């Protein structure tokens, strides 16, 4: 018999309606396993930050339960909050404080005994060691983002929430962040991140959750999601333009480009037969020749856009 692993984070029927009547979370249910990276995708105002804030205790949910490592976030808030690290979306820092002091503050605030060695390790891991005596106001946006991550890691959390961690940072820093996230995962930290950057989810997440208008539309293993919902296409650059698609090819899902020189065939990559071989045979029979052939895989972004449009 397989042992059932208790999720590190369990959200059940979570609802939040703000004072102005706006329902930001609608009956959210989600379970996250220890050590996984889950990316929450959603357009602006979808409820991603509200969901994170409700779990961390910044927003008060109207109903529902959330447990972290088996502890209820309301009843056992000391336990749950000491397990959680939060990197907020906004670059909120104490301008006149030094990098070192702000980490020491965070560690103490979360109930951990001072540990200079750990603070040093975190600062070095985030390439902040040489900035440790700098005041936060002197740092660039990217560096401040790193400091916020360092603050969240200062108390050695088992669950880390990253609310749009790479918003407004350059490509190289973004890739550094992905590396850091991967290293944290390797250390056993469970990571829940929200992002607008689909490639971020594609690059680092194990599972992807899509939120729209306060509802979780789906939560799926990233690879399975892409193979399930991702269309695969073959694009053929024709030698001669084609006036119309011949009747002999009507059985295929074909599209002719506007300038009539490209045919695109969409197929199910998980199907028993993709139909590519017979298509190529039928093209030859119809005297249609091509000079080049490309296959195209739907990106997570395409999937995300489709899902949000469908749910809207």
């Amino acid at each position, binding site marked *: 018999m397989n042992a059932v692993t208790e999720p590190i984070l369990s959200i059940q029927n979570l609802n939040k309606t*703000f*004072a102005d009547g706006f329902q930001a979370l609608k009956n959210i249910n989600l379970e996250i396993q220890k050590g996984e990276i889950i990316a929450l995708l959603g357009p602006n105002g979808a409820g991603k930050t509200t969901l994170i*804030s409700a779990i*961390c*205790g*910044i*927003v*008060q949910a109207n109903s529902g339960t959330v447990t972290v490592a088996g502890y209820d976030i309301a009843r056992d*808030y*000391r*336990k*749950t*909050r*000491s397990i*959680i690290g*939060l990197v*907020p979306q*906004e670059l*909120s*820092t*104490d*301008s*006149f*404080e030094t990098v070192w*002091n702000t980490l*020491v*503050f*965070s*560690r*103490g*605030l*979360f*109930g*951990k*005994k*001072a540990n200079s060695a750990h603070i040093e390790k975190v600062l070095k891991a985030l390439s902040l060691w040489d900035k440790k005596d700098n005041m936060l106001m002197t740092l660039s946006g990217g560096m401040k983002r790193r400091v916020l991550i360092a*603050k969240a890691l200062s108390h050695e959390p088992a669950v880390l929430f990253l609310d749009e961690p790479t918003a407004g940072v350059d490509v190289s820093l973004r890739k550094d962040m992905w590396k850091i996230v991967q290293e944290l995962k390797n250390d056993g930290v469970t990571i829940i991140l929200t992002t607008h950057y689909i490639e971020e989810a594609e690059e680092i997440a194990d599972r992807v959750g899509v939120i729209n208008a306060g509802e979780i539309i789906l939560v799926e293993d990233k690879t399975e999601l892409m193979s399930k919902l991702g269309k695969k296409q073959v694009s053929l650059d024709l030698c001669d333009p084609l006036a119309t698609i011949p009747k002999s090819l009507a059985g295929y899902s074909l599209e002719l480009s506007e300038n009539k020189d490209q045919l695109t065939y969409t197929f199910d990559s998980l199907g028993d037969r993709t139909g590519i071989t017979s298509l190529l045979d039928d093209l030859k029979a119809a005297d249609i020749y091509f000079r080049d052939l490309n296959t195209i895989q739907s990106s997570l972004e395409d999937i995300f856009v489709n899902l949000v449009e469908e749910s809207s």
Partner: protein
Amino acid sequence: MNFYAVMAIYKFEMARTRRTLVQSIVAPVISTSLYFIVFGAAIGSRITEVGGVSYGAFIVPGLIMLNLLMHSISNASFAIYMPKFVGTVYEVLSAPVSTVEVVLGYVGAAATKSIILGLIILATATFFIPLRIEHPVIMLLFVFLTSITFSLLGFILGIWADNFEKLSIVPSLIVTPLVFLGGSFYSTDMLPPFWQSVTLFNPVLYLVSGLRWSFYEISEVNILVSLVSITAFMLLCFSIVLYMFKTGYKLRT
């Protein structure tokens, strides 16, 4: 009890004071010295004695109380308002800390600064006038209770305020007039009977009177009434803070 969190907040706030030493300590000391020069030397030379005490010595408890009230309120209100304003309050709200621990950290630091300031002003006063303190323990108790209570009031103000104007309304439009009209610089005996009665409704009178009694054993109201009043007000303020955190008033959405 999360002692590490209490100490983290406390040290953080005290560090802020060290960074703003001129604003926190030097400025109040200079302004108090000016009070001594203007009220004590210039005006005091025309008022011989009040209740058997020289006018310069008479105003010392009032000056200490003025500074305790103003700085307790501003220290504590600023301490919680700024994290709200810049957004760093998320960390405190998401930390494994209870309301009592948050209050101990923020209010404790604000009160500590006020107490230090009060003692510095007391020391400054000795440069201008000879002082005697009949009941030093009661004096310290009053300074302690007042600092804690008005730091709690400032904390409430900082949570309530959602702009800088609101932050300054209570100290400038309510506390300052109450202090000036609460017998800080005069004895209520000097007022016409009607205004003497009106002054009894001013809560600051009880504080100034109580502190003055600890110095010179002269007071407008009974010392016990003063002590009970300040303790009751402290409990009221603490209850309001507890309520604010429990309901998330202007802290959690």
